[in-house]
């Protein structure tokens, strides 16, 4: 392995290339289809950086997705491909909305902690169902969690329609949650609330748990080889249950954070597709490493909010973000193929070489053939 790869590992090269490909895709689509190219590009790419409030809005919007992506990270590291975290998120955001709207006359110091507790409990309760079915009845956890998500979506929609709906709102949305029930703003006039702090703390804690903790070792060991885990006396079932409970609780917390200041109404069509998409992909992009999840969630939220802003401005479909996210993940997976990766590495090397050459013409003898780097690429 050469110096370049040491400083900038191939996995990071892959991630960066994939992100750039996603951005390039958006650029291309906008250039080819939008009549007002300049304005559209500005809205899409520069929008979140136009003001402090806009940037704060981006961070705030990414916060719930961070919780979801953290949940996905732990269950996927345990190789339990459960999507129950999405259901956890949905149910908890629905229940929290209902709880807050009903408890209108109660004081904030009671409502906010109680809502967080409800969210965690609801999230964990959802995740435990497919986990239990898998341990006890050997039901495929992916299948059962996806089916469960639809059940929950319908159930929460029912609650929305019959007990929370604001008839004055143009779409199927709940009444607005009063501001006094929102989480406290930690940086004034940015919209960045206490939830962001929680998300950052959760990322750090999960990172330590997974890579520096006993439970994390168990999670990764069960994920890597269930037979090894059985052989050394780790109970795969117990580890899988704990992992999924933890993930569900995190996603539930994300649901509460979403409702308490990010998205003050529960909107039928709002939370589900965007957040779940961002949550899962953000985890996939960084190989389920919690330390990088916030950055990754921020990137996908950036795509999503750019597309939403563009859609509000000119009616361009916001699904552009979903397509771009798909491009990101496809490129990422393609790069895992050694041959594709090889040419990419060469590209980056050339890039680095070009910069180095511009800075100084000395120290040019350190390059090594690309074939050797491939050794490090193989996973």
């Amino acid at each position: 392995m050469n110096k370049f790869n040491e400083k900038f590992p191939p996995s990071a090269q892959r991630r960066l290339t994939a992100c750039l490909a996603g951005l390039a895709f958006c650029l291309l689509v906008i250039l080819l289809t939008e009549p007002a190219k300049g304005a559209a590009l500005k809205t899409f790419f520069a929008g979140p950086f136009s003001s402090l409030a806009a940037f704060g809005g981006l961070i705030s919007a990414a916060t719930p997705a961070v919780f979801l992506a953290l949940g996905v990270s732990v269950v996927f590291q345990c190789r339990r491909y459960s999507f129950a975290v999405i259901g956890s998120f949905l149910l908890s955001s629905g229940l929290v909305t209902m709880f807050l709207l009903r408890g209108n006359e109660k004081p904030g110091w009671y409502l906010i902690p109680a809502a967080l507790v409800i969210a965690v409990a609801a999230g964990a309760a959802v995740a435990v169902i497919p986990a239990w079915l898998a341990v006890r009845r050997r039901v495929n956890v992916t299948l059962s969690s996806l089916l469960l998500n639809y059940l929950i979506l319908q159930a929460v929609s029912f609650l929305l329609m019959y007990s929370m709906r604001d008839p004055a709102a143009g779409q199927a949305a709940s009444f607005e949650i009063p501001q006094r029930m929102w989480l406290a703003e930690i940086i004034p006039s940015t919209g960045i609330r206490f939830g962001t702090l929680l998300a950052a703390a959760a990322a750090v804690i999960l990172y330590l748990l997974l890579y520096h903790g006993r439970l994390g070792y168990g999670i990764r060991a069960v994920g890597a080889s269930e037979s090894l885990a059985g052989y050394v006396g780790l109970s795969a079932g117990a580890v899988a249950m704990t992992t999924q409970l933890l993930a569900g609780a995190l996603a539930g917390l994300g649901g509460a954070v979403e409702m308490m200041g990010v998205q003050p109404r529960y909107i039928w069509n709002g939370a589900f597709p965007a957040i779940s998409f961002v949550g899962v992909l953000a985890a996939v992009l960084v190989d389920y490493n919690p330390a990088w999840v916030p950055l990754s969630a921020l990137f996908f939220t950036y795509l999503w909010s750019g597309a939403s802003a563009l859609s509000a401005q000119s009616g361009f479909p916001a699904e552009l973000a979903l397509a771009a996210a798909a491009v990101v993940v496809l490129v990422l997976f393609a790069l895992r193929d050694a041959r594709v990766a090889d040419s990419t590495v060469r590209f980056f090397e050339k890039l680095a070489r070009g910069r180095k050459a511009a800075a100084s013409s000395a120290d040019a003898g350190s390059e090594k053939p690309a074939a050797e780097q491939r050794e490090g690429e193989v996973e």
Partner: protein
Amino acid sequence: MEHICKAYTEGFVTIKDASLTLMQGEIHGLLGENGAGKSTFVKIISGLLAPDGGTFELMGKPVAPQSPVEAAGLGIVKLQKRSGLVPSLTVEENMLLGRQKNSFSPLDRKKMRREVGALLEEFHMDPGPGDLALHLTAEDALETEVLKAYYAGAHLIILDEPASYFSLAQTEELFTLLRRVAAKGVAILYVSNQVREMLELCDKITVMEGGVTTATLAAADTSPQQLQRRMVQENKAPKVRKTRAKLGDTVLKVRGLSTFGDAQRPVLNKVSFSVRAGEILAVVGKPDSGTRELCEVVAGLASAVAGKVLVFDDDITGDSVHGTRELGVSFLISTPQRIGVAPALSIQENLLPYQYTNPAYRSHGLLDKEKLKAEADRLIEEYDIRCADAQENAAVLSTSSAQKLLAAREFSNEPVLLVAYRPTFGTSEETAAFLEKKLIELRDEGTAILLVPTDWDEFATLADSALVLDKGQVSAYLPKVQGGEELDAYINGESRMSAEELEAVCFE
């Protein structure tokens, strides 16, 4: 094939200068110590790795397969260590798989069926054409794969240490099949570290050492000693000797243990015995006599129908592995999948599962990474696990190193009881001698050891006392093993000790 060079640094094995010439219809052995580069060399031939230099000719034409698929197209088939059959298809369907030119071209299934049936008959295969692949034994599956490769028109079939997990009778069947296939003009490259297998099967043997092929000999002109010498340049490890056992308290008590197998047929039938601290009790018997099940039940990997297993008078009969491990029971039970090593985890993570869960290896509530690394490095050094770094994935380990890793993990845990099922299986003689020495050290430190010996040499070297199982029942007990005892009659079920004699083993 001449002078293949490969700088293959990742897996800690480098091929420097390897050459091989194979004739049609020849069974050629590739012999070498573990880590000599045999597997890497074979991976190059089968297109899995690219060589850095050298030439490769097939039937007089230079070829350079870039992938296993391409190699298969050229007629070079390497059989995987794990079965490559589709479990949910029948033997016949597996044989037909991949025969159509593209996904849509029709198959003449009737004709093919006839062909496959005739083929199975011609080669005297045990499985029928309609048997599901998942019901096949490992040996039958391998034989089916050999035949499939032949049916697909392979010129060269490569087998990489296929017999590691088979009993002798089963290798006999495999060898007969290989000879028949070779007689049809197919070249066979047989990779192994077992001198005896080589001499029995192969026409020619190429010896490999440190990534270099050192010699090619005709099997008829050589002797086991000569081959062994060529395989390891330095002298063989001195024969392991043990002192007299200093017996302590009774650690393990098994009373009236019974288990059932798949077909509701008793596998163990009222087995009773005891093992004392500082004693190696060897359990011997035919492969189906229940030795393996006995080990699994004591370890907590399998459950019993009746009877009791006690460790220091703690009843562990119903306990899972977690429970038995808590009490200080270690076990080393090798299986075809080598379940004890996870290739996706690092060597350190594979080596230290008990330390990872031990509070002594934590600081401020988090794992003490430096202490863990120091311990991993110490064990890697002590057990001579060949790797560049403890953080590498365990996938890079050679077979012997993986076995040494398992031993290091299980032995270093200060066990009160060690269950060792054929602990040196598939390893080179050097590694086997090393592991035997470690087992004796462990015994001298006062660990009770329940051993199912890998072979008779190991029995003679290690056993303090012996128990013979026949069809799940205890048929003999020898309180002292001098070596060279005649146990065949007991093993084959021709004679059996009296109840009083057998009760002598059930001391409290």
